[in-house]
């Protein structure tokens, strides 16, 4: 009787590779007897602080251990490695609190298998939703998305179903779908994790959305800083085409859909939807005025559905039995699960998919534990470079869309960056202005020039701490940027600065 081969899982994912996964794969693949085991390059579970997390599956039991900084040079054979592995007290990662206390609906497959193994994807509910969708009228699909309460996970939190309805209702024989994969916010990686560790879920979500709105062509606009995601996506698109999940007459229906992967070129503003369209069309990434809405007149002047990666990857679970589970989580605008990204100076960093209705304090206590440096937490930035800095006295702040809106903040794309007490808030305020100056598309003067003036004012305040004139000027400047910039770049850059003025008294001027 043939017994199943022992499986060794070695993640192939940016963060895991960044701390040695590829090196471990090289070592294990060169050990004597390695052909007696099956090596699977899986995705990451998103418990990044454990990476490189190597798992062994034997006799139906799968356990893993952290191999960070481990020297395997004493191993000559696979048996040596197995002994080494057992000595590391391996455990089942799905049972640790960090994973167990999450509500993984969108990220349910992450880390479990080879991201490009289409059989694995299908045996874990993959493409069932597409089959279900193709058996429904497009309006019925949209109704389900509306019913789910899903809002855009890219930052603006607009109701996804309503956007789809607008595109659906346009009378135009050509419509497009554009997936915004220009995940530029510092402190975010949920889109990258989907694209690298579960790329078929994005393809499936895009195909369903395209069917619902009547688009026959989709673009993925991927930032160039994600080369591994590019490699996974292009392979996944090829595999999906070969298996008739993309292309003509998808799954023997009369629906045709193709996906074209386009690469950005290092511009943050191109994550703004109108700038993204300019870039896809081959121009400078300058922001367009709205109206017209992209849903009415978008890419190449055709009606275009624009959603970010996580939003689109959330669609398959909604058409596959998880709709009521999803829509029963949370209330108001903050429905369903949100992949928060816990990072920066935090011990247990990684992806946390959970409901919005959790305080920042509980998020840290339950998942992140404490700072990596062991020092006290001083500031927490939520929602990317345009998001608020919260102080350590604001731990009861809920992470709902409404709660953060009420203090002039935003959940944004779900990034949570922790700083210990060595942070200089004055430098953080100056950085907000510097980032705006570097990344402004240049269309609106308050954003293009105001941000440079803002850096200069904060520079002066760092020297002459109590200049009332400069403090008034900074307020004036922030108000002008907010009121007169076309997009969020200039319009929201003042938000982190206001939050430093309001929640970190005296720290803007280093008093």
């Amino acid at each position, binding site marked *: 009787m043939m017994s199943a081969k022992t499986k060794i899982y070695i993640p192939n994912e940016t963060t895991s590779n*960044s701390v040695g996964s590829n090196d471990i794969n090289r070592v294990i693949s060169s050990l004597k007897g390695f052909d007696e085991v099956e090596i699977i390059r899986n995705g990451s579970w998103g418990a990044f602080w454990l990476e490189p997390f190597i798992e062994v599956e034997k006799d139906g039991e799968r356990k893993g251990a952290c191999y960070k900084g481990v020297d395997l040079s004493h191993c000559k054979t696979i048996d040596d490695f197995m002994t080494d592995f057992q000595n590391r007290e391996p455990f089942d990662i799905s049972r640790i609190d960090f994973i167990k206390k999450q509500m993984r609906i969108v990220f349910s497959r992450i880390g479990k298998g080879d991201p490009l193994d289409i059989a694995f994807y299908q045996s874990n509910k993959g493409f069932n939703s597409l089959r279900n969708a193709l058996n429904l009228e497009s309006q019925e699909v949209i109704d389900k998305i509306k019913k789910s309460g899903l809002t855009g996970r890219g930052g603006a939190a607009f109701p996804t179903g309503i956007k789809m309805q607008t595109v659906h209702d346009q009378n135009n024989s050509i419509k497009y779908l554009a997936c915004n994969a220009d995940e530029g916010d510092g402190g975010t990686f949920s889109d990258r994790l989907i694209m690298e560790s579960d790329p078929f879920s994005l393809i499936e979500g895009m195909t369903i959305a395209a069917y619902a709105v009547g688009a026959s062509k989709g673009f993925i606009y991927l930032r160039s800083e994600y080369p591994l995601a590019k490699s996974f996506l292009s392979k996944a698109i090829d595999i999906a085409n070969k298996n008739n999940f993309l292309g003509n007459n998808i799954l023997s229906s009369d629906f045709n859909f193709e996906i074209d992967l386009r690469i950005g070129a290092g511009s943050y503003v191109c994550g703004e939807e109108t700038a993204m369209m300019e870039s896809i*069309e*081959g121009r400078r990434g300058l922001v367009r005025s709205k109206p017209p809405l992209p849903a009415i007149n978008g890419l190449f002047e055709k009606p275009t559905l624009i959603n970010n990666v996580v939003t689109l990857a959330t669609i398959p679970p909604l058409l596959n039995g998880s709709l009521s589970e999803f829509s029963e989580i949370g209330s108001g605008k903050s429905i369903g699960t949100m992949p928060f990204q816990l990072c920066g100076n935090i011990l247990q960093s990684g992806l946390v998919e959970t409901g919005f209705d959790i305080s920042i304090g509980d998020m840290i206590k339950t998942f992140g534990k404490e700072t990596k440096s062991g020092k006290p937490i001083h500031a927490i930035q939520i929602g990317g470079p345009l998001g608020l800095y919260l102080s350590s006295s604001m731990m009861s702040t809920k992470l709902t869309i409404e709660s953060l809106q009420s203090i002039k903040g935003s959940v944004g794309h779900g990034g949570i*960056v922790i700083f210990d007490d060595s942070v200089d808030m004055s430098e953080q305020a100056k950085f907000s202005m510097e980032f705006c100056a570097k990344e402004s598309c240049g269309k609106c003067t308050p954003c293009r020039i105001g941000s440079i003036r803002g850096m200069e004012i904060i520079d002066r305040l760092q020297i002459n701490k109590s200049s009332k004139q400069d403090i008034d000027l900074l307020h004036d400047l922030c108000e002008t940027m907010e009121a007169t910039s076309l997009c969020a770049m200039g319009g929201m850059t003042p938000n982190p600065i206001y939050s430093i003025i309001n929640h970190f008294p005296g720290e803007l001027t280093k008093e």
Partner: protein
Amino acid sequence: MTNLHEIIEPYVDIDGGLMPALHAIQEEEGYISKDAISELAKAFNYSNAEVLDVLTYYDDFTLEPLGRNIVRICRAEACQSLKSKELTDDLTSHFNLSLDETTADSKITLKEVFCLGNCALGPSVMINETVIGEADKSKVIKFLNEIDE
């Protein structure tokens, strides 16, 4: 300039083909030369100025060749919280370069980048297409020495 023509050709007839064509030239040639600009203008029916207008907007496209290895230090918030500023100072002083400069032997160009999506294990540095997490000066130097062997 048959070579340039060959690089551009696959993108001429696709919608918004200028960006992928620029990427292809940057990758093949290492920069966008004056000849390439003229060739692109001809192929896409733009003026030279229009092509220059597009390419100078994007950080990834350069008008001069860069070093053989591009070292990008992440300066975004999550890496800031883990001392990316000190790492930047360490690397600029080690290589005796400012950001956006190239060593005299053309081996290394130092650049900044805002977020590599490796925020959980910062500070991060990307060397060509490889991301180094929990980076420090010695990890970066070790990696550069290994790829140079």
